[in-house]
């Protein structure tokens, strides 16, 4: 009976996930340009990726970019989501309205997100520089200054924190009011209640968002692609490759430089890395709990 119910999903899993994953694993040991038969090269792709900086001059750069992005974007997004959720949760009237407004960025088509933010970050016409100008901060050339590219991208990801916000909001609603009331009777101020009650009670939520957020950030692709493509230009990852995320790098080798085998190898390196990071996070949480 159990197997019967699982069968449709299982067939799907084998046909569209397991088989493709295994063939990608096979291709990672080959030299393959999509057009001719793949030629077995053993571990050469893996070795070249890590040690041959002529064939893959930007591999390690893409690793650094992705790690930096993850380290900035994930906490920023979670903080923005938590702040929004706390505020929305604190009001009675207009909850639905604000929730909807704060969720709008999530539903915007990715293609439009790129165009919108290129305009917002524009050094001449952009709204962001105009607003900064009002408070006396000189305008920046956001998307063309290598040091500013990752923060600028992370900010867009925080702008799209709507789903995390809703999840936090749900977590907040799950905190029994009695606990907060008890804290008030004990004389705890709002700040103390936040740190002593809210944060610990939200721990499972935070953990879930952290794990899924890190997995997503390590695979960031669509955002950098839409920001740095367009205008008929080839995507080479922003100024001085400062926006060359790992998966964008992988994509370029898969489809632009004819090295699908190496691209497959990249994806298995990433897979192993994601698994390690996720396992570490789980272990950390277990220790904390113990």
């Amino acid at each position, binding site marked *: 009976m*159990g197997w019967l*119910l*699982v069968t*449709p*999903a299982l067939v799907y*899993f084998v046909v569209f*996930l*397991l*088989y*493709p*994953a295994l063939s*990608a694993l096979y*291709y990672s040991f080959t030299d393959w340009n*999509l057009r001719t038969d793949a030629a077995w090269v053993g571990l050469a792709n893996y070795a070249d990726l890590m040690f041959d900086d002529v064939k893959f001059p930007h591999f390690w750069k893409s690793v650094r970019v992705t790690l930096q992005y993850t380290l900035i974007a994930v906490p920023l997004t979670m903080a923005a989501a938590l702040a*929004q959720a706390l*505020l929305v949760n604190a*009001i009675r009237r207009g909850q*639905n309205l604000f*929730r*909807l*407004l*704060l*969720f*709008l*960025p*999530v*539903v*915007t*088509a*990715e*293609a*439009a997100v790129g*165009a*919108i933010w290129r305009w*917002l970050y524009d050094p*001449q016409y*952009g*709204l962001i520089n*105009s607003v900064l100008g009002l408070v006396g901060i000189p305008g920046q050339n956001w998307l063309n200054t290598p040091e500013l590219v990752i923060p600028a991208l992370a900010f867009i990801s925080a*702008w799209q924190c*709507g*789903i995390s916000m*809703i999840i936090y909001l*749900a977590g907040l*609603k*799950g905190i029994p009011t009695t606990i907060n009331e008890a804290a008030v009777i004990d004389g705890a101020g709002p700040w103390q209640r936040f740190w002593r009650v809210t944060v610990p009670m939200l721990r*499972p939520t935070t953990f*879930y968002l952290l794990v899924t957020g890190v997995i997503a950030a390590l695979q960031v*692709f669509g955002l950098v692609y839409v920001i740095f493509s*367009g205008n*008929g230009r080839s995507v080479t990852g922003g100024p001085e490759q400062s926006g060359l995320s790992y*998966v964008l790098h992988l994509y370029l080798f*898969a489809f632009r430089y004819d090295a*699908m085998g190496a*691209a*497959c190898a990249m*994806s298995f390196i990433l*897979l192993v890395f*994601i*698994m390690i990071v996720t396992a570490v996070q789980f272990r950390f949480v277990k220790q904390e709990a113990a």
Partner: protein
Amino acid sequence: MRRASIYVALVLLSAVSVVPFLWMLATSVKHGQDIYTKVPNLLPTDRRTGEWAATLENYDYVLGVGGLGTAFVNSVWVCLILVPAKLLVDALAAYAFARIPFPGRDKLFVVLLAGMMVPAITLLIPRLHVTQALGMFDSGWGLIVPNIASVLDIFLLRQFFLTIPAELEEAALIDGAGRMRVFWRIVLPLSKPVLAVVTITSFLFHWNDLVWPLVVLNDPELYTLPLALQQLVASPDGGRAYYIMAGATLAVIPVIAVLLVFQRRILQGIAFTGLKA
């Protein structure tokens, strides 16, 4: 006082969310020459005279020549079939993983979860091969069948099913109801919130998905919205913001509609999903 400052903060944060959106709306009704102004302008006014100068021509263009009309219909069809079908496949599997012991169940579940972490871009070409072998290349089926299940959704649904008190089901089973009856009559009705979450997230994903339709479709008559939109964005003349934004606005309307319909359920649903693992 405190409440007032909360509202002020909310209004400011909402502004950050909404202004880009408003710009999208404004640009979609602007004439080409009114887009570039030294001072950002959220109203469709004439660059020189400052008079109101809104137009619907951009919508006219993208719906007709731009192919967004056809694409819109295609996207609606694909989502109408795919989203419920996927929900069913996922829910059945999730229920088995949550409730029905069978040999190898937990190991299988772990394998599924690992599969979730393979970067999708690498699976693209092998998946395309499979789709071709199944004769579904360049067809509506090619958009639907290769997406008919989702490990993440199975995971979310299973976590929720685990929170439903087992006694409810056991009572029904003792009364002689079959497993499927229990599933239909007890489990699914109790799971409306999580079903809403899975519905909206999978709808959002497939409504906006670009890469898969790009490789699996050749026939322009079958193009989905993101593909048609991408045609406007990646246009060799640099992409005209007013067309892109008209297209993006059209694309976002159904999403907001779905969101309004499901809003309350989503919130309830997320309160339970995945967080009690």
